[in-house]
């Protein structure tokens, strides 16, 4: 393995950042979803609507948080008192006076006039520390409640949202799934909601608390000494603006980083999925080079972000330091000049102002993070809101019909349909399937056979014309109602993680084990499935991955069969089954299609020669129709297809 010990070839500073410029990598720009969204009242209102059911709780917790911050904000004052006990000629502080008042109230008055100075100081220190401890204890108890309840309300909102997204996805029609990438749909209910969690849980709290903290700290500084306060508070806006600039630049750098990272991970994921092809075509070394190039770009992007971060963070620190310097210098001047005066500026006050300055600066930096969080959450919120606002294409009419029993007549009356209405794939198709008839659809790939099956399933509604079941327009029928009478086996044999048994029972969860077995033996594939390592209890793996294509298709067959549908749809259902098994199924089909209307799409024309009616489709239109014999006699398209099929 010649590359394993290859030296690291990262010279990130020499590489350009923006353009991967990697030969052989996908030559297109992957489309990324926006990470940030500017403040937008509409989106915010939407978020507030999600939170509204718990607004009282949120409000209460914001107030409790406010109380907590208020209590903690006294800390510098305690420190001030403590330090100032050290000043010559110190007086009893207010807590100490309370203690003495209390002592005289319970009948043990203390005469302080005879006390030496340390006694006064001791009492001052003890009372200060005691009250300080009480304050902090209360603050911590409140904090515990705030953490618990705020998270509780926030998580409630998030979980309600998760459920809403899932319900909405179940409600939406196939057209949504056709035009939306799987990964995107996945992100809506997982990553997007996770990214919002910090904002939804702590958003209000962070906003209220930091704002209050900043204002209170500024007020305290002004109250302690307005001259020093005015001398430094102007740095607040400067810091704020620097912070915003920094966010903007780092935001851009981070976006580049994420894009580069997406390229790395997409490349990795795709090559692992296609590992068999990679191996078969010997592309290992080229791929490693491409991968390492992408990685090098990723490294360069990260270094760029680190540089911005490395410049701005210390800069913020320096601005904050400038404030400290001003406080100390000004404080020193006042302290030394005013020493001896009665209302002097004491050392404790200097320390208190110094600490309040830190308290004032903290929220400014926090606001930067909060701003970031908010932008990110809003981008996610907007996407989730778009999903939730999506209208299902196939919706029920005002008073939908519910069919109790169906004979199984299906009529297409001048149906025209296109996934994109501008490009119809089915043009003016009309036919009638009498109850119990077998109708086959034949034609080249992409001629619209599968689309007709999807239309019968009511996955889509036609743009023109009508489709009726037993004379009732399917538009009039209640949403899930027709599916009670429909059974479909498609080319795309999807199984859910679980056992074979669970998958067969999917459409009829109440069916007993015995019923499943009977269905399987009626289909003639009981033996084949029971010969699996764990029989019917065998795990099918993620999407049926543990089974062969043929076995998967047998299970899909059994699943549709157990559902006992009135209308059976077989869309290329037997293409992956070997001839023997197909024979078994063909024979079972004889029993299966009895008294059911059946639609078959097949490439293997041998499957369909016995149909009542064969519809030959071409470019979305029905070219020929009739029985096998009639169509052969006609000598048209079908006869040609058939000739190609039987002769090599």
């Amino acid at each position, binding site marked *: 393995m010649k590359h394993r010990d290859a030296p*690291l070839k990262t010279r*990130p500073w020499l590489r350009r950042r923006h353009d991967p410029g990697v030969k052989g990598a*996908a030559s*297109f720009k992957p489309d990324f979803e926006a990470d940030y969204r500017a403040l937008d009242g509409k989106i915010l209102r939407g978020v507030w609507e999600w939170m509204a059911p718990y607004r009282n709780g949120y409000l209460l917790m914001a107030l409790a948080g406010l109380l907590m911050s208020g209590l903690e904000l006294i800390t510098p004052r305690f*420190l001030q008192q*403590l330090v100032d006990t*050290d000043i010559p000629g110190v007086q009893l502080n207010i807590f100490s006076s309370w203690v003495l008042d209390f002592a005289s109230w319970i009948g043990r008055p203390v005469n302080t006039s005879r006390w030496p100075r*340390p006694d006064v*100081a001791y009492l001052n220190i003890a009372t200060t520390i005691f009250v300080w*401890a009480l304050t*902090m204890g209360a603050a911590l108890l409140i904090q515990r409640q705030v*953490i*618990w309840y705020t998270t509780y309300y926030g*998580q409630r909102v998030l979980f309600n949202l998760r459920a809403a997204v899932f319900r909405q996805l*179940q*409600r939406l029609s*196939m057209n949504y799934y056709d035009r939306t990438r*799987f990964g995107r749909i*996945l992100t809506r209910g*997982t990553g997007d909601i996770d990214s919002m969690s910090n904002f939804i849980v702590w958003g209000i709290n962070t906003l209220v608390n930091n704002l209050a903290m900043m204002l209170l700290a500024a007020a305290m500084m002004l109250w302690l000494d307005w001259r020093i306060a005015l001398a430094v508070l102007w740095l607040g806006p400067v810091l704020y603006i620097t912070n915003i600039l920094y966010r903007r630049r780092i935001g851009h750098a981070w976006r580049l980083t994420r894009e580069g990272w997406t390229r790395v991970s997409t490349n990795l*994921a795709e090559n*692992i999925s*296609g590992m068999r*092809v990679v191996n*078969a*075509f*010997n*592309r290992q070394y080229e*791929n*490693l080079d491409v991968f390492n190039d992408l*990685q090098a770009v990723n*490294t360069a992007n990260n270094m760029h972000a680190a*540089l911005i*971060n*490395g410049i701005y*963070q*210390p800069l913020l*620190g320096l601005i904050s330091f400038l404030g400290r*310097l001003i406080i100390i210098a000004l404080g020193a001047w006042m302290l030394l000049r005013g020493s001896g005066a009665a209302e002097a500026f004491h*050392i404790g006050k*200097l320390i208190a102002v110094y600490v309040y300055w830190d308290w004032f600066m903290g929220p400014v930096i926090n606001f930067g993070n909060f701003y970031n969080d908010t932008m990110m959450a809003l981008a996610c919120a907007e996407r989730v809101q778009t999903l939730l606002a999506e209208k299902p294409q196939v919706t029920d009419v005002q008073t939908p019909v519910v069919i109790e029993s169906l004979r199984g007549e299906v009529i297409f009356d001048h149906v025209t349909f296109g996934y994109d209405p501008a490009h119809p794939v089915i043009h003016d198709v009309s036919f009638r399937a009498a109850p119990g008839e*077998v109708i086959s659809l034949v034609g080249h*790939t*992409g001629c619209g056979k599968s689309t007709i099956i999807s239309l019968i399933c009511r996955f889509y509604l036609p743009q023109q014309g009508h489709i009726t079941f037993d004379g009732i327009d399917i538009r009039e029928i209640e949403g899930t109602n027709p599916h009670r009478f429909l059974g479909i086996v498609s080319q795309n044999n*999807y199984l859910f993680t679980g056992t074979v048994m669970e998958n067969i029972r*999917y459409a009829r969860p109440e069916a007993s084990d015995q019923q499943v077995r009977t269905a399987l033996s009626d289909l003639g594939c009981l033996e084949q499935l029971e010969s699996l390592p764990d029989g019917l209890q065998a795990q099918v793996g993620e999407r049926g991955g543990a089974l062969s294509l043929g*076995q998967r298709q047998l299970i899909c067959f059994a699943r549709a069969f157990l559902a006992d549908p009135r209308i059976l749809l077989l869309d290329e259902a037997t*293409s992956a089954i*070997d001839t023997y*098994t197909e024979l078994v199924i063909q024979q079972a089909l004889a029993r299966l299609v*009895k008294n059911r209307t059946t639609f078959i799409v097949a*490439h*293997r024309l*041998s499957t369909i*020669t016995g149909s009542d009616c064969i519809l030959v489709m071409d470019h979305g239109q029905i070219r020929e129709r009739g029985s*096998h014999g009639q169509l*052969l006699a006609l000598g048209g398209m079908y006869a*040609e297809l058939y000739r*190609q099929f*039987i002769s090599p």
Partner: protein
Amino acid sequence: MNSESKPADLQGRLARLERMSNRQLVGEMLQFVRPVRYTAAMACLLVGLAVFLEIFGVDLTRVIINTLSHLAYPEKKASSPGAVRLHAAGGTIFNSTGLGAVESLLVLLAITTILLAVTNLLRSLANTKLSMDMVYFMRSQAYDRLQHLGFGFHDRHSTGQIINRALSDLHNIRFFMNLSLVSSAEIIGYVIGYNLLVAAINPWMGLAALAPIPFWLLYIRYFGRKMQPIQKSLMDTGDQMVSIYSEAVAGVHVVKAFATENMEIKKYQIKTDQLFDQTMQTVGMWAAFVPTIRGIATAANLLLFFIGGIMAVHGILFAGDIFVFGIAMGAVLSRLQQINQISNQYQTAIVSSRRFFEIVYAEPTVEDIPGAPELPPGKGEVEFRHVTFGYKPENPVLRDISFRVPAGSMVAVVGPTGAGKTTLMQLLARFYDPQHGSIWIDGADIRRTSLASVRHSVGVVFQETFLFSDTVAANIRYAHPDAPMELVRHAAQLAQADEFIAQLPEGYNTILGERGTTLSGGQKQRIAIARAILADPRILILDDALAAIDPGTESLIRSSLRELLRNRTLFVIAHRLSTVKSADQVLVLENGFVTQRGTHQELLAESGHYRDIARIQLLGFDSSLVEKPAVEVRS
């Protein structure tokens, strides 16, 4: 045979991994630090410098305040020499500039702060460099391994699992190594530095400042232990919830077809409820954890202030010293909270590293002998000699298979599902090595030739088509990225793909895959065939690759293949008799044995599987002529 010992060897290595204690695993993880050790040392050094400068700055502030207090209250006696220690130093440095004591200290503080800012900049760069280089090296190694492990490994692990290991498991390990290196240095630096500072002011205070540390550590440990199982079940439930969600999305056509939306909603709801309960359980613990940790810190802090206050009254300490206690406790506490993060990350990294090492230590399915010769030139003569193979050696899928195929002929492999047809072909491409027997191409044992030359000579079109999210042209020229456009077009024409590609929105530059145009199964298969044709192998294998293609197109492809394959050998796995009929030789595979061999005509003459399936398929046609279906579809 050495190939028999291989699985045992593999298991031995993986078993060793299983036996490893957590500590040994961390030792194993250190190998990832080795290639970046200089950067790591640099990062730690810068951390040390930053910690030193920060603490020095705090000490300067302390001395400034002490000096101020000294100057402001001259009647107070100073009994501590520490208070004026740096005052003197500052004075000496700046005496020549004519500045006063406080002024010179302030200048010194400013210089320190600027130095700190510069150090922090360098530190941020070194840190990122360290983490990026480490991840670069690890990912590149994992990627290389994955590419060379071969099919065996990919059979055992699902794609999602492997991607997860190579991305998030790797990330977890890297994050832990980074954190434990740099953050540990930082934490140790802060704890020792601040304690030295406090101890230098007053040794007794230094001792008192150490008091809360054991409480913190014990509580963090206790909390971590209690949290871990809940955290794990929380992650599991989260995974299950996502899996229900993703299956409901991926299988939406099934959900819709059977109208089981409400069932899915209920399934999901049950999991989200469970996850909510577990989340609140952890929140309950956090809600207790944060105030408790802060409570311990506050108690210790207040104790220090109390003692400090009394000492100050006696002139042992000064205002600045008390101020430093507050700063020191706050700084140490915020770093110690990171221990919790490190221990969390440690737990994740242990789990992740076991999984990641399973990749790093996995034995490749097929070992390439170093310096093995290339496959000799030839036209694709193939011989199997007593080949026995099973994915698990105790369950052979192919048993004692021997046959010879002359160069330039077309061979059809037929047989029921699970008979071993695909396995047979994968052995030929050397995706696996047989346990017994040998496979020869043009007179060379493929196990003794270089793997790359075998893969170059054998082209495979897989049953399940995989195309990359790239342009049509890039997909077709996958084997030869530099192939000119004419060759690409020619290959596409032979595969009957040129026509539909031309109709795609951007022709050969159309991007395929999830992000691009989606093709039908038959169209994808045709592109895969074109890709194999362009690779220009001497042996071409079509593994049921014509199944999704309609009969008309299929017969066109077959005739163009025949044209192409004058000098090549073609293997076709197929169910359709029409495909099989034209083969020079038909192999019937049943239960891992070759039960019949011969031409179509020969096999029709003897009784067996082939005649059975031929009858089934042909009967349909014969009966149709008399208008009586072979399979009665109606009573």
